[in-house]
């Protein structure tokens, strides 16, 4: 078989064509895979639904809690009692699985209001503890019925399989009893 051989280097034009074709094929394949994977991500409509929302906290009486949705995710807003705040502050954070002080989880001057995501950080169930009569767990906060995680009155994980505290969503007080989430 006669090859068009460049004998001085030992490589042939056929080798070069093989590599170049392979490289072009790999790039092409990669380019095709991008849209196939990217379409799985949240679409424009879903992202647009994540615009900030305003919440009036005034109707929430002390000891009450409400649920609301932002970006399709559940959020708890709890108006804590003095006892609950004191309990949350009394904890030695060195003993916590996910160490955070109560101050880091609330806004200064607005300690009674705890605003946190309402899905357990274990596998996403909604912990009980908002409605009167709900079990609140061993730490006066929330109890997740699915796999038994206990959260304290600051929404911090204290017992059970969940690895993290209930996260605090981005929000700011726009007035004394008004917040903007997002």
């Amino acid at each position, binding site marked *: 078989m006669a090859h068009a051989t460049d004998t001085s280097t030992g490589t042939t034009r056929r080798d070069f064509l093989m590599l170049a074709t392979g490289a072009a094929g790999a790039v092409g394949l990669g380019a095709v895979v991008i849209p196939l994977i990217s379409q799985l*991500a*949240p679409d424009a409509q879903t992202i647009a639904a994540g615009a900030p929302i305003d919440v009036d906290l005034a109707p929430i009486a002390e000891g009450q809690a409400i649920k609301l949705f932002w970006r399709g995710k559940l959020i708890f807003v709890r108006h804590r009692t003095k006892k609950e705040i004191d309990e949350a502050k009394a904890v030695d954070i060195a003993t916590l699985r996910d160490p955070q002080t109560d101050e880091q989880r609330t806004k200064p001057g607005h300690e009674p209001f705890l605003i946190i995501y309402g899905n357990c950080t274990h596998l*996403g169930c909604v912990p009980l503890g908002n409605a009167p009569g709900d079990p609140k767990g061993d730490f006066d906060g929330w109890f997740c019925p*699915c796999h*038994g995680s206990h959260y304290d009155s600051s929404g911090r994980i204290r017992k059970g399989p*969940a*690895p993290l505290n209930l996260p605090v969503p981005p929000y700011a007080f726009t007035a004394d009893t008004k917040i903007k989430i997002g």
Partner: protein
Amino acid sequence: MSGHSSYVPKTGIERWLDARLPIIRLAHDSAVSYPVPRNLNYLWTFGGILVFMLVAQIVTGIILAMHYTANSLMAFNAVEHIMRDVNYGWLLRYLHSNGASMFFVAVYVHIFRGLYYGSYKAPREVLWILGVVIFLLMMATAFMGYVLPWGQMSFWGATVITNLFSALPVIGETIVTFLWGGYSVDNPTLNRFFSLHYLLPFMIFGVVVLHIWALHVVGQNNPTGVEVKNVQKDTVPFTPYATVKDIFGMVVFMILFSWFVFYQPNFMGHADNYIPANPAATPAHIVPEWYFLPFYAILRAIPDKLGGVMAMGGAIVVLAFLPWIDTSKVKSMSYRPIARQLFWMFLLVCIGLGYLGAMPADEPYVTISRILTVLYFGFFVALFIVGLFERPKALPTSIADAVLASANGGSAARVATAAAAEPNVKG
């Protein structure tokens, strides 16, 4: 293991086709003249039963898809529409939902049969691994199918199972967002699950073809675990012997299936799934479908999120490595006095885990789940160790001898040294 094809085209048309596409020859060789060990018991009919269940699920599923709407606002009502308005819709849906459960009943019998008779050992390792792949695909399909009615259990089952991936370090959260197509389980999730629920059964079908192909290359195992040595003496043709036995097994299985469909159609479901999905409240007692319960119990037994997910995944993946974990050369546990007891203990552990998976995450259930989880994995360790020193009982010299010996009620044809690995004869 079969020899030359015994197919003889009888008509001119058959000869014409045989020279161009020998499809009748293929069917004849694999389902008529194919030699099967003459000592197969009824546990071997579950392969055929599983093929029947797969076809039944695909047929009822395709019909249900004609009446279903994969939209989070309409899905729940679409299922009620099927139940109330569509002609025989109630029957088709109950066949499909109970069919999923019966599919798992059959596959668990099939897996434990393979476990007891050592069907995973050489030369059937690839056959066994393909089976584990089918099992995984079945679990994915069943899980996504359960999400489609968009009831409370659908929604929260989907939330919990997709959140399993969030346990993975670094990339976990991104994977979950890509699974959801949003920031929580919602309409995009339902849509893609419907698409995949429709696709996966056909992937199962493809792997089943490979599974059967691998089976027909190495031949069937049998209750003695002794390979076929003489096709004339040790085997009978698939048709009529295996065909008729398989059909009889299927009919008996269909009686059980029908009893559930017509008398207890919701026995294996959850009442909570007749409540429309509510993202603001989790049902007080959330459990997966019964066929996932042992794995769910293992997940909950580990007090660490990543650890629990890995233990649950490991409980399934470990099965794929069984051909190399089991160190004994004797296949059938009938001839393994110690391993046989381990097998029955393992079966009890699995049933126990299934029970615990349905219980609340409280004491004493959590502690018992931990003990049984250790025992579950301990079975595989024990299987490795026991094979090194266990002294098996005498194996029959051949399948024919085993059949004749039990027919004569004597032990006429037994050899003393059974531990010696019999050569893997392929007739």
